[in-house]
C-alpha cells in the first residue's frame, strides 16, 4: 500500500480545510476505487481526507417528486431505501447491482460520480435523470458535469455534497456486466420525465458516459422498445478491447436501451 497520511473529516468545511492544507491531498469516500488504485501505485496522494463519516453528506430525502441523495450515501443504502425505490426504482436497482454486497456497504454515490469511470453505473443515472450535482461551492447540471473519461467539471479541491433530481414518470437501467469484473460493458439508463426523454449510455463509449440524441428522438415519439428498432448506433467512438470490439458494443447499446425501456414499463 502506498504511503500516505490519513485525516478524518468531521464536516464538509473541515474536509475542505484539511484538503487545502495538504501538499497533494485526495478525498477518501468509500475507498472502493481509490484504495485499489493506491495499492497499484497508480495514485499516490500525500494525504487522504476521509469524508465517509460526514453526516451532512449522508442520507436520502424524498420531498414530493424531488429526490436528494447525500454524496456519502452508500450503494447499499440507495438500493434498500423503500421511499426512493417506490418513486424511482431505476436508481435503486442500479445501485443494487454495483460491485458486490461488501463493496456496496462501503462504496458511495459521490465517490462514483466524482471519479467518472467510463464503466461506472451512476454517471448514466445522473445524466439520464438530468440531476444537479451540488458541491461545496456551486451547483452543476449533469449535462455540464461529465466531461469525458475520468474527467468532470469539479475544480481542484471541490467536493460533491449531494445530488438531486426530479423522479421521472418512467425510468430504468439495463446493464450488460463484464462477467469477471461486473463493470458495465454497456449500461443504459432511460428516463421519461417532465423534460422529455433522456437516454444515457455508460461502459460503451471511448470517452465516458454520453447521451444518445437518436434514441431520445425515437422514444419521444413512442416510449416503447419497438421504437428503437430502426435506430442505428454507430460503432464510431465506441470502446474496443479484449472484452468486446466497437461493433459489439454498439449493438449492446441498442439491446440494453431496449431492455431498459421494457423494464421502465
Amino acid at each position: 500500500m502506498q504511503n500516505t497520511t490519513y485525516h478524518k473529516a468531521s464536516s464538509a468545511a473541515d474536509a475542505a480545510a484539511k484538503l487545502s492544507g495538504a501538499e497533494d491531498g485526495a478525498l477518501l469516500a468509500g475507498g472502493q476505487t481509490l484504495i485499489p488504485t493506491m495499492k497499484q501505485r497508480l495514485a499516490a496522494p500525500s494525504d487522504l481526507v476521509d469524508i465517509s463519516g460526514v453526516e451532512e453528506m449522508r442520507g436520502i430525502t424524498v420531498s414530493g417528486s424531488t429526490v436528494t441523495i447525500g454524496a456519502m450515501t452508500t450503494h447499499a443504502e440507495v438500493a434498500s431505501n423503500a421511499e426512493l425505490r417506490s418513486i424511482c426504482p431505476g436508481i435503486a436497482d442500479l445501485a443494487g447491482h454495483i460491485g458486490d454486497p461488501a463493496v456496496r456497504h462501503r462504496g458511495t454515490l459521490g465517490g462514483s460520480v466524482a471519479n467518472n469511470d467510463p464503466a461506472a453505473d451512476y454517471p448514466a443515472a445522473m445524466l439520464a435523470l438530468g440531476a444537479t450535482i451540488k458541491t461545496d461551492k456551486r451547483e452543476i447540471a449533469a449535462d455540464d458535469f461529465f466531461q469525458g473519461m475520468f474527467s468532470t467539471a469539479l475544480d481542484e479541491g471541490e467536493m460533491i455534497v449531494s445530488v438531486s433530481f426530479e423522479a421521472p414518470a418512467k425510468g430504468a437501467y439495463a446493464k450488460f456486466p463484464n462477467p469477471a469484473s461486473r463493470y458495465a460493458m454497456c449500461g443504459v439508463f432511460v428516463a421519461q420525465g417532465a423534460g422529455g426523454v433522456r437516454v444515457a449510455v455508460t461502459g460503451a463509449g471511448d470517452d465516458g458516459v454520453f447521451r444518445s440524441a437518436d434514441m431520445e428522438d425515437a422514444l419521444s415519439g413512442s416510449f416503447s422498445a419497438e421504437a428503437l428498432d430502426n435506430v442505428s448506433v454507430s460503432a464510431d467512438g465506441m470502446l474496443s478491447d479484449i472484452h468486446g470490439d466497437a461493433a459489439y458494443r454498439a449493438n449492446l447499446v441498442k439491446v440494453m436501451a431496449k431492455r431498459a425501456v421494457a423494464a421502465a414499463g
Partner: protein
Amino acid sequence: MATVSMTVNGKVVAEVVEDRTLLVDYIREHLRLTGTHVGCDTSQCGACVVHVNGKAVKSCTMLAAAADGAEVTTIEGVANGDLHPMQKAFNDNHGLQCGFCTPGMIMSGIDMVNRYKAEGKTLDEAAIRAELEGNICRCTGYHNIVKSISQAAGEM
C-alpha cells in the same frame, strides 16, 4: 503513525500503526487474528470479509484508521461457545474443501441472512447465488456452500 482503537470480537483494542495500514493487516499482523485471509488483495475474492458495525466489508479495501471507533467482528468472533449456525451448516453440508475462502464465505453468509431477515425477504437459492457475487471459491463449485447458507438461514 496513528493510534487506532476499535472493538474487535467484543474486546477493546488499540495499536499504533502506520496510516496506510489496511484493516486486514491490522487484524492479521497486529492483532494476530489470522482467520481472516488475504486472497486476491484486490477486493475481488472476499476471503477477507469481516463485519464493521454489523455490515460485511472487504477488509483489504479499507484502512484500519477508517475503522477507528468501530465494532468489528471476524471469523474468530462468531462462535459463542458452540459453533455459530453458519459454521455448523458448512460442517454439516461439506461446504468447503481447502477452506481458504471459508472465513469470508461464513462472514458473507451471516451478513446476507441478517439483511434478508431485517428486510423480511426470502433468501432462496437464486438470491444466495447472487449475494455470493463477491466471494470466490476455486474448489467446491459453490453447490455445498449454497446448501450450507440455505440451512443456516433456516436456523438463524
